[in-house]
């Protein structure tokens, strides 16, 4: 095209004008202002309205208040009145608003457009989805419901629905709690989590439990930790195989060889008994109950020092400090329990509380009431051994007619062969319901969008409680922006269609949750009289004044210390010379929250690595392998190999390679997909002999360089030291 001078100039002028207009004018949408149709009762446009609801990402029971403006959720804060988190939140609670408005949420029901699992989907409407569900479940001979550890009314509705259609309800959780609970049962004789009174403790002995990070009710424990540090400043001793966040905050950090936590705990008990640090009357009966002083003496520090890797002096110091600074509390979690001898490790550690007689004492271990039956605590998970055999059965052709998976991802987290994804190939009809696509939902015949907890009704009982019964309520703070529905509501819609009117006693989750609250106060029959109380309950976020009897601790432990065996590892020490220690990170946990770019970009506290997986190696080990931070290594285990970059960490033991859990996913949105590697894929399917839980810290591996380097996404920059010796950035004082 020929461009004359005049035309060219006109074009230039036009473009310039265009630029000016674009540059100056406000976007068209910003010059529009809509009036509401109805005036909302308690809010004006542009005003903040705060709603109390449940912490979306917590399974232990925190309550939050959500700031909404014009119907949009903006910010999460802790509910200041709530006894568990007391106005505080953790990093994942803060990111809940981002998961809520994530552009890659499942927006509508979908069916595969081609073959199941090939990644192409077709959107359908809910009516059709419900018809498909009803048609599949109604005549089904067998129905299996797989969920995460549901809590409260949602758990009860799921159980009631499974019973109604004659199905089975299985509970899946990648990082299991069963071993801990079983150890509590053996030593304390109770079926719920006790309250470890860290706030008033003089000494805390934590064996691998990352209680200010990823273990248990971490927000409650963090505040307790803060109070412990005030006043007389209690001491924290952390005994573990890989330094956790909690370990970084400890006064004493002690490396204990993997699986030897139980032996170390009994060794501490032996010192207390042998040196008569505590009066005979306190420990005589409980020591007798676990096998007597003779059994303890087999764990004298000099006998087990080699096994545990902890010197005699250190054990004596820990024992003496624990007794000198009573009240004290001892508990175990994390990798300490994820061993073949995990249950006995846990029991041995909890036994320390009995030796010093600190049950039912402030600063010791206090009993909690059981959750009310109609608002249960999070359901116990089906142990890994059960999942492994279930997966094998599926693969062998023993399949249900319908498999309904909600908010669980066994295809990502079950190690061993065959994998869950392959095993469900023969299941005729798989339903996946979730907010985000995951490894399991991606293989479904029918995919349903689940609401975010900020869009749905629910309730929970805090587990653990603070020694009292604490019930919280979850109310919708915003309407779904997509076509999501709540899991409970879907089941309650299906029930009458399959089994006729009145099949289940509630029509909706709202009704069920409200009925549960009425029952809590013994007001089932009062009807309208409950309206005002109900609003007040929702406004406060829960109820915590109601009296409830606490569980009673058993007088004597039901545990035989001779049962404590040494740990067994997958892979021989000769060719697999590293302990592979997976760990959950504070930001993305076991990976369920990794869709959020905020959480992905938050640095792991100790390494500051973001967005990807890494392998922590000791500096000397790394030098022997000829690798540094950013060099990629292959980690070979019996069950597979993953390649991850190294992070050289001075706190990592020489025979340990530590890799975070939760990344390496193929589904779940632009910020979750294809980041790092899935450590579950190389773990050996070893189990705890006592409970059948996955012994995820019992795999051995070898590490080799693959001569590749990546730019490490760490927040820290390593520079030549300036005059930091003269002027340390952080100051430290003695006591």
């Amino acid at each position: 095209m020929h461009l004359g001078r005049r035309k060219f100039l006109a074009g230039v002028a036009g473009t310039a004008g265009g630029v000016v207009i674009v540059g100056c004018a406000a976007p068209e949408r910003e010059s529009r202002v809509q009036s509401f149709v109805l005036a909302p009762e308690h809010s004006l446009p542009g005003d903040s309205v705060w709603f109390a609801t449940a912490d979306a990402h917590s399974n232990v029971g925190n309550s939050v208040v959500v700031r909404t403006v014009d119907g949009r959720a903006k910010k999460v804060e802790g509910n200041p009145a709530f006894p568990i988190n007391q106005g505080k939140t953790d990093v994942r609670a803060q990111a809940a608003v981002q998961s809520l408005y994530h552009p890659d949420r499942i927006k509508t029901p979908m069916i595969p457009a081609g073959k199941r699992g090939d990644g192409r989907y077709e959107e359908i409407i809910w009516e059709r989805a419900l018809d498909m569900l009803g048609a599949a479940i109604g005549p089904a001979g067998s129905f299996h419901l797989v969920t995460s550890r549901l809590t409260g009314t949602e758990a009860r509705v799921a159980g009631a629905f499974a019973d109604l259609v004659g199905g089975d309800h299985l509970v899946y959780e990648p990082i299991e709690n069963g071993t801990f609970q079983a150890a509590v049962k053996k030593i304390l004789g109770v079926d719920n989590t006790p309250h470890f009174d860290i706030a008033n403790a003089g000494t805390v002995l934590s064996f691998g439990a990352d209680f200010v990070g990823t273990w248990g009710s971490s927000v409650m424990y963090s505040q307790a930790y803060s109070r412990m540090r005030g006043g007389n400043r209690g001491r924290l001793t952390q005994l573990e195989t890989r330094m956790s966040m909690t370990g970084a905050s400890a006064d004493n950090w002690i490396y204990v060889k993997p699986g030897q936590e139980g032996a170390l705990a009994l060794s501490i008990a032996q010192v207390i008994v042998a040196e008569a640090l505590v009066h005979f009357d306190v420990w005589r009966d409980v020591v007798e109950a676990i096998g007597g002083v003779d059994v303890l003496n087999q764990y004298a520090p000099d006998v087990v020092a080699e096994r545990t890797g902890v010197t005699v002096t250190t054990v004596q110091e820990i024992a003496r400090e624990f007794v000198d600074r009573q009240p004290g509390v001892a508990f175990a979690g994390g990798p300490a329990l994820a061993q073949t001898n995990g249950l006995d490790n846990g029991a041995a550690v909890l036994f320390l509380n009995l030796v010093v007689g600190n049950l039912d004492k402030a600063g010791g271990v206090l009993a909690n009431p059981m959750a009310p039956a109609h608002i249960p605590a999070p359901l116990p998970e089906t142990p890994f051994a059960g999942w492994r055999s279930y997966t094998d059965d599926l693969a062998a052709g023993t399949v249900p007619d319908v498999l309904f998976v909600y908010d669980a991802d066994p295809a990502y987290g079950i190690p061993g062969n065959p994998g869950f994804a392959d095993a469900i190939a023969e299941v005729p009809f798989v339903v996946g319901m979730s907010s985000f696509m995951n490894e399991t939902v991606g293989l479904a015949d029918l995919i349903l969008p689940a609401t975010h907890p900020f869009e749905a009704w629910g309730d929970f009982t805090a587990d653990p409680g603070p020694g009292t019964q604490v019930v919280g309520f979850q109310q919708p703070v915003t309407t779904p922006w997509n076509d999501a529905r709540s899991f409970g509501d879907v089941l309650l819609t299906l029930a009458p269609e399959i089994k006729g009117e009145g099949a289940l006693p509630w029509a909706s989750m709202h009704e069920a949750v409200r009925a549960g609250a009425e029952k809590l106060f013994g007001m089932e029959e009062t009807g309208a009289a409950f309206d005002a109380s109900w609003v007040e309950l929702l406004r406060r976020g829960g109820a915590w004044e109601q009296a409830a009897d606490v569980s009673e601790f058993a007088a004597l432990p039901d545990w035989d210390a001779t049962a404590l065996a040494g740990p067994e590892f997958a892979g021989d020490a000769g060719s697999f010379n590293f302990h592979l220690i997976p760990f959950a990170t504070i930001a993305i946990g076991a990976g369920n929250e990794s869709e959020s770019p905020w959480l992905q970009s938050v640095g792991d506290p100790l390494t500051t690595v973001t967005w990807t997986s890494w392998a922590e190696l000791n500096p000397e080990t790394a030098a022997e392998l000829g690798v540094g931070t950013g060099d990629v290594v292959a980690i070979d285990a019996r069950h597979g190999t993953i390649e991850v970059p190294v992070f050289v960490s001075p706190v990592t033991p020489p025979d340990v390679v530590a890799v975070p859990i939760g990344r390496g996913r193929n589904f779940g949105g632009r910020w979750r997909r294809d980041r790092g590697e899935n450590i579950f894929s190389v773990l050996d399917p070893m189990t705890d002999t006592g409970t059948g839980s996955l012994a995820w810290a019992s795999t051995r591996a070898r590490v080799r360089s693959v001569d590749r380097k990546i730019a490490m996404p760490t927040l820290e920059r390593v520079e030549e030291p300036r005059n930091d010796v003269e002027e340390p950035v952080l100051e430290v004082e003695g006591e």
Partner: protein
Amino acid sequence: MGVLRGLLPRLTRRQMALIGIPLTLGGLATAGAVAVLIFLGASGGTIRPAPVQPIAYDHAVHAGDNAIPCEFCHRGVSTGAVATIPSVEQCMYCHAVVGQDLPGVLRLAAKWEAQEPIEWTRVHRLPDHVRFVHVTHIDANIPCETCHGDVETFAVMKQVNALNMGECMGCHRDTTNQPASSASPSGNAVLKSSASLDCAVCHR
């Protein structure tokens, strides 16, 4: 220029003028345009013509003839940052019985019937980097007309002040250290006597 001379081809005076004058003019024009853009950006805008609204709402009738106080409809003005536009429901409180056969009210009623929001066009708009809070100004006894003009005479709502930073600053300086009267129209507390000149009060 002396150094460049050796590098550039030799040009006649006429050639230099031919190249130089357009270049200089072009440069000046560009600089001018940039300056105007910066000014417009910094000054927060100009007085824009009154927009056409989906319903020809007449402030002169409501606020003038019928003397309805501003706050009756703009309810947020004495409690929060935003004065707020009334909801359709609120209009219908009166118009369910008043002026039902007027064309504007018929349109309103249709919206109410359909339960649809009315999409008004904004008359007063501040840039994104400014946070204006109505309640503080109401409590300081600043009459609405200071910024919005004699709205009770406007048949069509229009902008009368540029609402740029100079206007804000002018007022804020004038009221510095002037005691506020003890009666505040919103019935809320009496604001302290001086208006702030701190940038962070509005720019957050």
